[in-house]
């Protein structure tokens, strides 16, 4: 390891600070932090929306919010959690951790990376700006045609949704190209594909899913937008259009999307378990192939969301079988995680608690998924709270548990501070109990006939008791979030000694460098000879490595900051924003001008040109 090779480096330069340095940053770590902060705020907003939903459903014939507002709430809750919560939280880890774990200085295209973030931020802001117009999207997170047509949804609500999601799609695609190339090309010398940390592998597969599934929803959204703006009939039956096509296009994207949401979490858990079991990941190759297989088969199961549309027995049978097959590779993952823990020396630090909680909860969600995969049975389950239970077990019990575990695990690396273990444990148990109290009863209330997306239920239906439990659980979850935030705040202000480079005895390269890392990550690119690179280095060194010392900040030339990506991002947002409330040529024109200016300025800028200092 060559981190200590620059001991005699020149004087120590401070990194730039201040708001402008963040706006123009092209540093993957800063961009990662911006992704994280933004996504966490959106997550809280989505959670707040969920809390209002839960309060409305506290008792029968609830009157807290109107039907109209309720519909906006669950649409925005779903949309926010998926597109502005879990996806960008994963993107935070892609940004921060992929280059570090690969032993790289940055992503392949640092400015494109900044562009992705800005487009994501603007998309999220535009979609949420709808609240100020009293016109938040209200068609459900999968916006089934023909309710979303101009005839049945004349307001701005659906426009905000189609435009916002298209903008977010641009961000995801740009990021996916970037990380795809990064993983293939920026692996440290000696790191073969089958040496990469599992988080990088799962993220890599996620990028492939993004690349191949986002264009599909883009087309669907474009067609819907054209229908609404120009009066075509792609999804309007009166002109021969078929609303079922929307469903196929949406779920062709939508199912790969759920694996986009979970695969990074699989990766995070696969990082945490070995470290706190003191034992390498069990069945590395099987883990890689099962992940790839899940993604691949994930493209062939979309119509399991459409069993009640009456596709005919052959299609039903095909999609049922394809869906069930996914349980096999997922099972392989579960068993290999248990295999990793098995025979280890488990240390129940907070990240480990969340990782174990993830496995326990995800199994539950996966099994109810297999129950939906049986079409005749699903005819009773679909569109009830049984489905809501399933997807919160995989999304919250799965993704959010793992992402939270990742936060505790990587917090020292990202912030240079350790989070409090006691509060972390409290956070975990509150979340575990609150989560199950919120979502377990949904299985029961669902099978007993409570449909989803209803703003209220009758007293006759007798759903009250279970709904009350769910609401209490949701507030426990809120409390858990407050504990987390308190933990962050408390440790942020405390004067603890800076976190060491390697607080957990980690196995991967991000722990080889100071916490937080310097701008260029690695003064010299590390040489890798196998998996678990850092453990290997420690083994060779016969125990621990010396704490790496920071070197001069200008020891390695890094690309200059740039505001051009922000301009280009504004161009994208304005151009597409012109489709809110019809098509406004002027807005498109202005947007295109800004976009082209941004792109040209960016293309002809030399990222390494000498700057003022």
């Amino acid at each position, binding site marked *: 390891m060559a981190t200590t090779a620059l001991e005699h480096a020149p004087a120590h330069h401070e990194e730039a600070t201040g708001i402008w340095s963040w706006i123009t940053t092209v540093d993957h770590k800063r961009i990662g932090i911006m992704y994280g902060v933004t996504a966490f705020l959106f997550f809280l907003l989505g959670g707040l929306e969920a809390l209002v939903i839960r309060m409305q459903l506290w008792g029968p014939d609830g009157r807290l919010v109107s039907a109209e507002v309720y519909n906006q709430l669950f649409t925005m809750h779903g949309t926010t959690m998926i597109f502005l919560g879990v996806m960008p939280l994963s993107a935070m880890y892609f940004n921060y951790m992929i280059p570090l774990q690969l032993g790289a200085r940055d992503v392949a295209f640092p400015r494109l990376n900044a562009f992705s973030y800005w487009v994501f931020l603007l998309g999220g802001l535009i979609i949420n700006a709808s609240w100020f117009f009293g016109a938040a999207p209200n068609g459900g997170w999968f916006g089934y045609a023909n309710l979303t047509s101009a005839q049945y949804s004349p307001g701005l609500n659906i426009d905000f949704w189609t435009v916002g999601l298209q903008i977010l799609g641009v961000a995801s695609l740009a990021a996916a190209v970037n990380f795809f190339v990064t993983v293939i090309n920026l692996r440290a010398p000696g790191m073969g594909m089958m040496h990469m940390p599992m988080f990088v592998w799962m993220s890599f597969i996620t990028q492939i899913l993004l690349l191949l599934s986002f264009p599909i929803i883009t*087309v669907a959204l474009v067609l819907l937008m054209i229908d609404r703006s120009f009066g075509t009939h792609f999804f309007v039956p009166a002109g021969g259009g078929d609303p079922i096509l929307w469903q196929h296009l949406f779920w062709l994207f939508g199912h790969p999307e759920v694996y986009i949401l979970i695969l990074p979490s699989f990766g995070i858990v696969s990082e945490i378990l070995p470290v706190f079991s003191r034992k390498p990941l069990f069945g590395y190759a099987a883990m890689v192939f099962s992940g790839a297989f899940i993604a691949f088969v994930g493209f062939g199961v979309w119509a399991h969301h459409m069993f009640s549309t009456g596709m005919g027995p052959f299609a039903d049978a095909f999609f049922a079988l394809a869906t069930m097959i996914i349980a096999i590779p997922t099972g392989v993952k579960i068993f290999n995680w248990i295999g990793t823990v098995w025979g280890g020396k488990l240390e129940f630090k907070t990240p480990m608690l969340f990782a174990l909680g993830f496995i326990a909860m995800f199994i539950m969600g996966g099994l109810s998924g297999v129950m939906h995969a049986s079409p005749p049975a699903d005819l009773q389950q679909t569109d009830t709270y049984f489905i809501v239970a399933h997807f919160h077990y995989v999304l919250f019990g799965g993704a959010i548990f793992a992402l939270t575990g990742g936060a505790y695990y990587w917090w020292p690396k990202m912030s240079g501070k350790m989070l409090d273990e006691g509060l972390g444990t409290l956070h975990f148990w509150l979340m575990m109990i609150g989560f199950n109290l919120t979502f377990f009863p949904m299985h029961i209330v669902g099978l007993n006939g409570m449909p989803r997306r209803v703003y209220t239920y009758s007293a006759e239906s007798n759903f009250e008791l279970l709904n009350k439990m769910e609401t209490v659980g949701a507030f426990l979850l809120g409390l858990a979030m407050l504990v987390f935030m308190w933990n962050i705040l408390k440790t942020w202000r405390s004067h603890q000694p800076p976190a060491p480079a390697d607080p957990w005895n980690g196995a991967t390269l991000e722990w080889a460098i100071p916490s937080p890392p310097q701008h260029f990550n690695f003064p010299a690119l590390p040489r890798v000879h196998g998996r678990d690179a850092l453990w290997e280095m420690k083994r060779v060194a016969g125990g621990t490595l010396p704490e790496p010392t920071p070197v001069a900040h200008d020891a390695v030339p890094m690309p200059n900051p740039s505001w051009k990506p922000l301009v280009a991002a504004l161009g994208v947002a304005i151009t597409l924003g012109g489709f809110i409330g019809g098509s406004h040529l002027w807005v498109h024109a202005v947007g295109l001008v800004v976009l082209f200016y941004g792109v040209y300025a960016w293309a002809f800028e030399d990222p390494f040109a000498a700057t003022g200092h």
Partner: protein
Amino acid sequence: MATAHAHADDHHYTATGIDNRKLAIWTFIGSECMFFASLIGTYLVYKGRDVVGPKPHGEWLLNGVAQEQMLEIPLVTFGTALLLFSSFFVVLALNGAQKGNRKQLIGWLLATIVCGVFFVGMQVYEFNHFAHRGMGYTTNLFSSTFYTLTGFHGTHVTLGLVWLVSVLVVALRGKLPPEKALNLEMAALYWHFVDVVWIVIFPVVYLIR
């Protein structure tokens, strides 16, 4: 390892030896495949599902008067040939760029752009002509799917042209030495991709009834 060399292995080191940008453009092209697949799929699913005319192939009625089939094969055959030509020309231009043959580079690049412009012109003419024959964007499912699919292709061609023209300007300024030929190669790859999409669209939309 000394400080002076600290960066020697960084911004041009790639694990596969393929340039980052080249890999990126291919990745993007892969993604674009799905974009056009969705559009073509939509076109095909809706084919023949129109409630009213015009029909792409065969006769239809406008205000009770029988009309010819909509699509005009000779015109698009010409357009198709233009795109194929341009693909051929751009490889020659790239070849010139890589060899440092400025004349070859600029000449063929210009030829490529001319062909591309004529293709777009063909499409504009075609759209106009159809509109005059009573096929507006919203007239029926065929017209909407047709205009959307070919229109998005046309947009891609236009973007490709903007890109090629930018490269041409750079080349004219003498800033496209052989070691920077990748700047042209990326645009060329995109251009070829737009061409192969048309190779699919041409029979699927125009030739198969």
